[in-house]
């Protein structure tokens, strides 16, 4: 008894030591980085790599843009090394807070975020504009009534319509839309517009000018603008030291003309508004009221329950993808198995090519092809509702390929003697498969099928590629709006519980079939 207790204590002690050493090693690994940031040898700029002309990937595969050029010059003058860090726009706050980037410098709208960051003074004055197809009959803002408008998730355009500081005018305008949708990047937005799934995009004027030009003028901009806003560089709240250094360097660049030179290079000279007259936002308030403001003015934080309620729609959407994908992909997989095992060589080959493509290319790519392919390949204009179908079709045809190979292995695992016994007793081919082979195959393939189903639960999050708001997409959006990581944990919990249920159900089925072996 005592011995056993000792053993227990020992194992607890061991686990604690193990845990401690893991934590220590993490701290140790990350320590040099913290030090480097303090000495400011490097300067890491976080930016959305799909936001030309401020920051994007050019034809040579390099990250370039107006903001990155500015940052490069600032680094040069301070003797820092510039690190260009593309980030997921929804996760920008986590990146900044965790210290993995030093600032967000990327056509970053100050309006509505005044208290969330330590800001430079505004350097670009930008407006939100509406883009439609050249042949569209939309000519003024009021024409947007009952139309589907798309914006980038967590963009200033979205804030202009639905943010806390949105004007009543803009709110009313957004109300008149048939739907206001969010996509993760501008490229998706233009894909949607070009294939007629949406009728208009709302975005920053600088970005819009660049996009329209580079896309061959099949789009045009409405003359009426939605709102005016200013861009600044966002630093982690309280990091005034770094902010001041960068700000002073920028002002020096403005004085010696380097700033305007860079602006001209990117065609933004008319939008420049950097001035030594401007005061920092946080200078206008005493530090006391500022911290008070932070607590009172920060967006009302949601608790666990609220987040759960907000995520419910996303959970339903995830469940829908999951259930429909299983309903369609399992029979489709069986069909492909039959083709794969067909007597006709050509049918066999076709099935083999299908499986090889479906397994050999990323699921996300397949989703994009299914969604936008009909327009770009066959020039078929697609309805907005097709998006949901595209998600289901994409998942089903992909998973069918995996299921087909599992089924084939399952069929081959049933001994030949079973088929022969059935043949001798006079069973038809259909009866032999349905009554003799299939039930035995089903038992053999349960473990690999369970694996696939569990993967499917997690893969449903890839639907975000088509701007389909399942639970993960929604969690990212809420996390961005709340500047909190909690919604992501709630989503993670959802997936985990979902999979525990799946595993439990599959285990039950396996037990059910355990009456023979």
């Amino acid at each position, binding site marked *: 008894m005592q011995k056993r207790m000792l053993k227990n204590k020992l194992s607890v002690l061991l686990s604690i030591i193990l845990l401690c050493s893991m934590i220590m090693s993490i701290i140790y690994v990350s320590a040099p980085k913290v030090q480097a940031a303090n000495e400011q040898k490097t300067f890491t700029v976080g930016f959305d790599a799909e936001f030309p002309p401020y920051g994007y990937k050019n034809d040579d595969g390099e990250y370039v843009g107006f903001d990155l050029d500015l940052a490069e010059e600032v680094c040069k003058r301070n003797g820092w090394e510039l690190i260009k860090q593309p980030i997921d726009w929804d996760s920008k706050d986590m990146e900044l807070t965790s210290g993995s980037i030093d600032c967000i410098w990327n056509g970053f709208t100050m309006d509505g975020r005044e208290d969330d960051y330590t800001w430079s003074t505004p350097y670009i004055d930008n407006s939100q504009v509406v883009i439609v197809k050249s042949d569209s009959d939309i000519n003024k803002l009021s024409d947007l009534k009952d139309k589907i408008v798309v914006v980038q998730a967590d963009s200033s355009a979205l804030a202009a319509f639905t943010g806390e500081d949105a004007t009543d005018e803009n709110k009313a305008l957004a109300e008149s839309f048939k739907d206001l949708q969010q996509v993760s990047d501008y490229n998706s937005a233009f894909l949607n517009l070009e294939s007629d799934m949406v009728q208009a995009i709302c975005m920053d004027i600088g970005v819009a000018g660049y996009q329209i030009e580079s896309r061959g003028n099949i789009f045009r901009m409405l003359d009426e603008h939605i709102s005016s806003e200013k861009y600044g560089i966002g630093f982690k709240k309280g990091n005034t030291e770094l902010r001041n250094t960068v700000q002073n360097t920028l002002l020096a660049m403005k004085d010696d003309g380097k700033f305007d030179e860079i602006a001209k290079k990117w065609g933004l000279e008319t939008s420049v508004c950097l001035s030594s007259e401007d005061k920092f936002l946080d200078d206008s308030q005493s530090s006391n009221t500022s911290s008070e403001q932070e607590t009172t003015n920060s967006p009302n934080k949601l608790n666990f329950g609220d987040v759960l309620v907000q995520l419910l729609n996303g959970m339903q959407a995830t469940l829908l993808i999951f259930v429909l994908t299983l309903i369609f992909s399992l029979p489709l997989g069986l069909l492909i198995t039959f083709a794969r095992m067909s007597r006709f060589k050509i049918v066999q080959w076709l099935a083999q090519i299908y499986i090889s493509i479906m397994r050999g290319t990323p699921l996300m790519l397949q989703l994009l092809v299914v969604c936008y392919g009909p327009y770009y390949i066959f020039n078929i204009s697609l309805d907005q509702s097709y998006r949901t179908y595209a998600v289901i079709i994409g998942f089903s045809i992909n998973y069918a390929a995996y299921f087909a190979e599992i089924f084939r292995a399952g069929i081959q695992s049933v*001994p030949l*003697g*079973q088929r*022969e*016994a059935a*043949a*001798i*007793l*006079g*069973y*038809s081919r259909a*009866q032999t498969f349905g*009554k*003799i082979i299939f*039930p*035995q195959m089903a*038992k053999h393939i349960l473990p690999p099928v369970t694996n696939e189903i569990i993967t499917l639960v997690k893969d449903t999050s890839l639907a975000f590629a088509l701007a389909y708001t399942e639970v993960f997409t929604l969690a990212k959006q809420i996390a961005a709006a709340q500047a909190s990581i909690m919604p992501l944990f709630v989503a993670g919990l959802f997936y985990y519980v979902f999979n525990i249920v799946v595993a439990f159900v599959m285990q039950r089925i396996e037990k059910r079939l355990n*009456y*023979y*072996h």
Partner: protein
Amino acid sequence: MKLLEINNLQKKFGDKVVLKDISLTVEKGEVVSIIGPSGSGKSTLLRCATFLETMDSGELSYCEEKIVKNENGKSVYPSKRVMKEAHSKFGLVFQNFNLFPHYNVLKNVSDAPIRVMKRNKESVLEESRRILKKIGIDDKENAYPCELSGGQQQRVAIARALVMNPDMLYFDEPTSALDPEITAGILRVMKGLAEEKMTMVIVTHEIDFARAVSDRVVFMDGGVIVEQGKPEDVIDNPKNERTRTFLKKLSL
């Protein structure tokens, strides 16, 4: 009546000739044992006769009705309907039983008559139970094959063949997968069938059993029938040298 008639059967696997010009006739009520060394083609002959393998050339009749015809030196098989009819003439008991593992004993025995022959369910179940009882395994009708011993499984397999009411039964080395002390029980069941004048073709290594139950013994070697006749002639006084060598090896 000739239940089975095979003429000039040839079968190749790739380049290897497994059966050369085999002709064999089985009369109604006759018990024929096929013996011979492994690789002699015994099992292939049985599999050709039961349509599990296709013949390359030669012809085959059941109940004096020609099923497989020989045209230009090639075997030609008839329509599905005729084949289905021919299938109902015989049953086959496998060396490794091949019971359906997901069905219990009663369902293994009764499923084919109900599903394939569309016979009345009640009468099939009644007959299945009667046959299971006769074969000595009526207390296991709810058991699954994995719960039975090899001997019990082979009894079920024999019952499954019998419920189909075949004109004749094939046995492909029915006791080879069994322990010696269980073998005797199965042989007794087969002997019982022989006494009821069931037509049987048995591929076997049990020489004593072959001698005891067979009306005729066929000795095969190298894909041909070397010698056939009454058991006392073929087994006790073989004329052919190859038969003598084979039997001598067995007795050592």
